[in-house]
């Protein structure tokens, strides 16, 4: 059960010899509790700042072009990319000396690490301290280790302290869940990634999540193997056929050929029979499907007719006595029409009722109603009888349908078995048959064909075992998913409440997350978003900015769900470049503020377009928010200088709030 993961909380970062920040190549930033906001015009390197922090923690920079396969693969495949990423931002001369240092807290441990900007798998300095009472004491002395060894220690220790099983899982959480970067696909709408996150978040423990990841990959591997081996085998078969056609065919003689011929014809006949069986059953299935379809349609129609008749039947039962006006008059002695009161009213109304005619139009009601009612009821009985018979037919048709489906499956299996047997026989024995002819066969071709037949049989065998493997993995995966669903049902309350709270404050609407399990061999789970503003659903098209902020709310909810209460994590948000809908900006600020209030930390970037959001945030967070301008970090272009003026005005206002 989650709620005991202690994700890293960042205290301080230092960038050294970072040529991108031309005016100030060595920068130190202390992070406060609450919100840290790095503000500056576009293109100054705000995103780089966040990327550098994440690189420091994980050694990885996300490669947007790469398709996500699995948590393990993601880490290993990104190492190459990460080692070159900062090339554009750091001078050649500074390559070796450019580094990032971080100070962070993980539960009761404090980490001080330094990493070279081009060394994803090395750590230059590593210090791990453990808190005892009010002091921190060194856990171990790493100073004598090599950079590689320090890295090994780091990736061994930090997942343990965080509470995950592997370092790759930490990288995944850090880059996919805790970091929001609009250039990458949104978490909510990226099924593959979301599924992994769900397993991690709601799985029974990280071990199981890892297992699910592996299972999924194994299933997919087996699945693609099935296809590949099948293709390979069929290609081989074609090729073998071609080669054989090149040889002369002479008339076959001899007893042995006769034997083979008999065997061959027996096999061919078996196959014919099997094929006929399958075809017959397929026809039966088509017929029964049609029958079931017809019966179902008829049933729906009859039900409809029944309900209509019933309504009519009931409406004819309206009795004068129970009409509200009459009933009230009788019980209260007051006429609802004219207002008269007294005993006389009751007597008069009673007479009306006894006369069985309508007081307004004079028609003899009761008699007419009863007759009509009886007629309708008779029709109702007829339809009911029809419905009952139809249900019986439908039930037995459904049973028959099920039976035929099962039989068809068996027959199909039998057909493929006998077909394969036949083909193998054909190919193996054509060779033998040819061998009885003299002189026209070249040994080389023989050997070639024999080899190919061997390969083909191997391919078929591999395909079979791949099928078996795929079935097995699918079954295991489904069981895991079922367990997960149960666990989710329990966790749903906590997680949904927290997500709703955050998103409601943003969109102002009730949101609902539901988990869905997909059927079929592939399986898979995903989340659905429901926007309920009224008891009935409306289709909502979310705007881009709304989607962004829903995604951020989702990450916050997951972070809250995963985090241990003593160790609340940090969320990294690289604010979208485009402008947000003004209406939502201040609400977004509200959402961030709420997140902070519950003890979490946000490290975010901002530009001129996010000033509304920052206004709101500043107003709510006050001293919990720290705003840092990038002006002193780099030289500005002309365009950027112009923007700076606008900036100054906007941010002066915001800074006022913070005082």
């Amino acid at each position, binding site marked *: 059960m989650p709620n005991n993961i202690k994700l890293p909380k960042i205290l301080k970062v230092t960038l050294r010899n970072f040529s991108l920040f031309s005016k100030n190549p060595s920068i130190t930033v202390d992070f406060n509790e609450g919100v840290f906001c790095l503000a500056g015009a576009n293109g100054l390197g705000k995103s780089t700042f966040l990327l550098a922090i994440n690189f420091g923690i994980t050694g990885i920079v996300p490669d947007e072009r790469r398709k996500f396969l699995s948590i393990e693969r993601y880490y290993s495949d990104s190492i190459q990319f990460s080692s070159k990423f900062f090339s554009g931002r750091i001078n050649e001369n500074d390559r070796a000396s450019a580094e990032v240092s971080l100070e962070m807290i993980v539960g009761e441990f404090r980490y001080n690490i330094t990493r070279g900007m081009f060394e994803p798998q090395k750590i230059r300095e590593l210090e791990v301290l453990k808190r005892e009472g009010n002091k921190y004491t060194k856990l171990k002395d790493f100073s004598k280790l090599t950079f590689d060894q320090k890295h090994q220690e780091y990736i061994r220790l930090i997942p343990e302290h965080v509470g995950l099983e592997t370092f790759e899982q930490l990288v995944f959480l850090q880059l996919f869940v805790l970091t929001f970067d609009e250039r990458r696909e949104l978490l909510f709408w990226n099924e593959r990634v979301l599924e992994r996150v769900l397993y991690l978040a709601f799985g029974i423990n990280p071990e199981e999540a890892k297992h699910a990841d592996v299972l999924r990959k194994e299933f997919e591997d087996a699945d693609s193997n099935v296809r590949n081996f099948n293709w390979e085998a069929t290609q081989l078969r074609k090729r073998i056929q071609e080669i054989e056609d090149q040889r002369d065919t002479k008339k076959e003689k001899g007893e042995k050929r006769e034997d083979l011929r008999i065997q061959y014809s027996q096999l061919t006949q078996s196959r014919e029979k099997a094929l006929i069986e399958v075809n017959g059953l397929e026809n039966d299935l088509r017929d029964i499907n049609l029958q079931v379809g017809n019966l179902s349609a008829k049933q729906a129609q009859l039900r409809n007719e029944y309900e209509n008749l019933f309504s009519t039947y009931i409406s004819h039962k309206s009795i004068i006595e129970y009409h509200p006006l009459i009933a009230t008059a009788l019980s209260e002695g007051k006429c609802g029409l004219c207002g008269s009161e007294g005993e006389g009213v009751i007597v008069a109304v009673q007479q009306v009722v006894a006369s069985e005619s309508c007081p307004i139009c004079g028609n003899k009601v009761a008699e007419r109603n009863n007759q009509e009612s009886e007629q309708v009821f008779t029709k109702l009985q007829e339809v009911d009888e029809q419905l*009952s018979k139809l249900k019986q037919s439908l039930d037995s048709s459904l049973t028959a349908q099920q039976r035929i489906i099962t039989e068809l499956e068996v027959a199909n299996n039998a057909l493929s078995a006998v077909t394969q047997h036949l083909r193998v026989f054909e190919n193996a024995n054509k060779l033998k048959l040819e061998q009885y002819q003299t002189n026209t066969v070249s040994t080389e071709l023989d050997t070639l064909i024999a080899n190919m037949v061997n390969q083909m049989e191997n391919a078929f065998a591999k395909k079979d075992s791949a099928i078996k493997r795929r079935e097995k993995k699918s079954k295991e995966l489904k069981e895991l998913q079922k367990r997960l*669903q*149960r666990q989710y049902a329990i966790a749903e*309350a906590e997680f949904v409440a927290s997500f709703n709270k955050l998103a409601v404050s943003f969109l102002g609407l009730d949101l609902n997350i*539901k988990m869905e399990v997909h059927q079929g061999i592939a399986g898979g789970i995903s989340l659905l978003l429901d926007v309920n503003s009224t*008891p009935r659903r409306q289709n909502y098209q979310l705007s881009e900015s709304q989607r962004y902020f829903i995604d951020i709310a989702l990450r916050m909810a997951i972070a809250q769900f995963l985090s241990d209460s003593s160790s609340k994590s940090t969320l990294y948000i690289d604010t979208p470049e485009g402008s947000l809908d003004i209406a939502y900006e201040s609400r977004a600020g509200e959402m961030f503020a709420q997140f902070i209030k519950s003890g979490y930390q946000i490290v975010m970037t901002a530009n001129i377009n996010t000033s509304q959001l920052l206004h709101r945030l500043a107003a709510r967070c006050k001293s919990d928010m720290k705003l840092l301008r990038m002006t002193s970090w780099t030289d500005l272009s002309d365009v950027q200088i112009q923007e700076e003026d606008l900036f100054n005005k906007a941010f002066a206002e915001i800074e006022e709030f913070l005082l």
Partner: protein
Amino acid sequence: MNSLAFFDCLSIARRIQSQVGSVLSSELHTFAYLSCLLSLYKGNPVSEWGYDFIGIRQNAPYSQPIDDSKSNILRLGFFDIDKEQYIRVSPSGILEHDRLKLLKIYSRREQFIEGACSSILALPIGLIRNALSKEPNLLASQESNSVKALLDERSPSLVLLYDQFNALSSAVRIEMTNLMIPAIVWLSYLSKINEEKEGGMSNG
């Protein structure tokens, strides 16, 4: 007008009345829901019951068709209602019910309604109401902010319900048309496993 809900209303009211003298509006919804669950227990799909339920606050089930039917039945004079809101089936209501229950579309449902209402023989109504509120789908409906349809086929809590029913049917072991015992056993089970939870809230 939903004729199934109409019939169920009459049938449930009549049965409950015969045991405790009268029936309350909320009890119509409760026992309709319980009857529907028993139909699921017997392997019928959710869609076959004929009308839906939602979960409202305090973990109680509610069905609009049932409420509409109650109003219609009152208007037609088949129900009488007193000042305290207790409902009784009127003589004309009894006649109508006797007539309708011969139709096959309804006689199929009697098995489930009978099973549900017969639980009152062994368990007090208040206890039944309390126990049912701990049913997985009703429990889940309390957690979300929005009104939630009960027995949605994609919902995880339906899985939990079927788990319980599987256990129930292995425990009861014998196939019976009379569902009184599965109903009593299941409700007693829900009541018992939540006993500890209720008593344990000693610090508020």
